[in-house]
């Protein structure tokens, strides 16, 4: 078994008197899909926010590719290879579909501002390559978005918005992808498509690790290799979906006994 590419150890996040995340630990391996489930307010999104650098953890360690990334600024963490989507899609609404993906490439090494201003010919060639890469990525999730790449992102359907957000995250070839409730508000056919997309990510980007926050248990059951259950900021169970869903503590806190 290879080394974990990503891990959190005793991660704790306190906001004033409230402990939103309480000594959470888990590991993520290459090609693995880890699902984080739990009731609303359990701290799942907070874990994402801490791990992507939006908050500095009160305690604990976050390790990525062998080094500790606690307290790094969000853009640096993104550049190292951790990208995410948001519970409510945060797209650049007034920019085109293509532009959204191009921005996603900001996290790759060669995009620095100095070059942007000074070397324009080099830029044109690189830009063509980037555009091609972006269109290909879009195409693997939706032929329609690839052809309508000039469409304003704000005008997309909710399903397309999620796909675009995923494309934007994948544009920089991240090592870890964090998906925050991607199935929220989707009907069954859209959910099925989403599951295809999640598994497609794995085939497109070899070795990528995915952490998935979800409420939709069918998605979790069919995609997750490991499930972590959070309640009131603490982990109450870890394991395969089968094990976790039959755990009485989990059933009481979240799933309900009929499952």
């Amino acid at each position: 078994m290879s080394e974990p590419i990503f891990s959190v150890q005793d991660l704790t996040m306190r906001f004033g008197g409230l402990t939103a995340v309480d000594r959470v630990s888990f590991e993520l391996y290459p090609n693995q899909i880890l699902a984080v489930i739990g009731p609303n307010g359990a701290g799942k999104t907070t874990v994402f926010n801490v791990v992507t650098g939006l908050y500095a953890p009160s305690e604990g360690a976050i390790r990525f590719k062998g080094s500790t990334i606690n307290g790094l600024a969000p853009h640096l963490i993104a550049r190292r290879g951790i990208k995410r989507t948001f519970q409510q899609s945060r797209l650049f609404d007034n920019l085109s579909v293509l532009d959204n993906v191009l921005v996603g490439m900001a996290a790759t090494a060669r995009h620095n501002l100095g070059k942007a201003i000074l070397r324009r010919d080099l830029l044109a060639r690189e830009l063509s390559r980037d555009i091609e890469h972006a269109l290909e990525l879009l195409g693997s999730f939706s032929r329609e978005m690839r052809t309508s790449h000039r469409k304003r992102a704000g005008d997309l359907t909710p399903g397309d918005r999620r796909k675009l957000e995923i494309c934007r995250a994948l544009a920089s070839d991240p090592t870890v992808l964090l998906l925050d409730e991607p199935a929220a508000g989707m009907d069954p056919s859209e959910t099925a498509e989403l599951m295809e997309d999640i598994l497609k990510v794995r085939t497109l980007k070899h070795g990528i690790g995915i952490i998935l926050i979800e409420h939709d248990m069918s998605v979790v059951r069919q995609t997750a290799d490991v499930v972590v259950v959070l309640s009131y900021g603490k982990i109450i169970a870890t394991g395969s979906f089968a094990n976790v869903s039959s755990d009485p503590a989990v059933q009481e806190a979240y799933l309900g006994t009929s499952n």
Partner: protein
Amino acid sequence: MTLFLQLFVAAVIVSCLYALVAVGFTMYVGVINLANFSHGDACVMGAFILMPLFILVSSLGWLGTAGALVIVLLFLVVSALTGLWGVVIYRILVRPLLNSPRLILLLATVAAGQVIREVVRVVYPNGSNPQVFPKILPQGGLELGELSIGYDAIAIFVITIAVILGLNFIIRRTRMGMAMRAVSQNADVSQMMGVNMDWTVTIVFVIGSALAGLAGLLNGSYYGITKFSIGSGLGIKGFSAAVIGGLGDFYGAIIGGFLLGFIEVFSAAYIPDGSQYQDVFSFLAVILFLLFRPSGILGEKIYEKV
């Protein structure tokens, strides 16, 4: 020592004025997350509504016997009228833009403030020049040794305390106040719980504008003059005070107002050539706060909502 006490009194008065403006401003931020840059210019309305009313009232000879009562009435009327103006601003300008990006709303209020300022300047006779403001506050004062405290200063202080206590009561003890607090915590949920957003916001505008009008009025009474442009100055100070105290926090605005007032008065007095630069000190204070403690003194640490 007397100099110090004298300055102390002056600082308190200036602080009261700033606090009144700051509270109004911070209410807009707290309840609907709006930075209303026309707030300062509502002070101008207060001052410029009072002047013709005062002339009217004195020409009708009402100031003689029941003088004090009439003055109080004038205060109420002007505050009410300015409050009404708040409703106008809300209905015509703010409400249609509530769903636009916040930047648009902010710019719209800035433009609105300018329109108010310029309309007053153009419409009021001789509007471009400073106007003599009637002395409607009690004249004369206390002499405590070498220290003199004007009755007008005491009046301002008392009025401010009364207003603050009144507002505190409204916010903490009435249903309307609770509605305001609920909306400032979570607008969507409040609506689902039956709070009438429209009315709550309207009340906020009424109170906010009335406060501004009162501040403009008191400012004019105390200094004896007023000008169409006082709104910008008072407005900026009010915002600064609100920021220092913590945007959205009622008590923060008051603390901010006093902090700002004291910094201004004392730096003007004790730093050589200070009076010319007193505004610079206030703004420096604001900028320092924004640098090191953007949530202000009482505000909660700002966590980005993701």
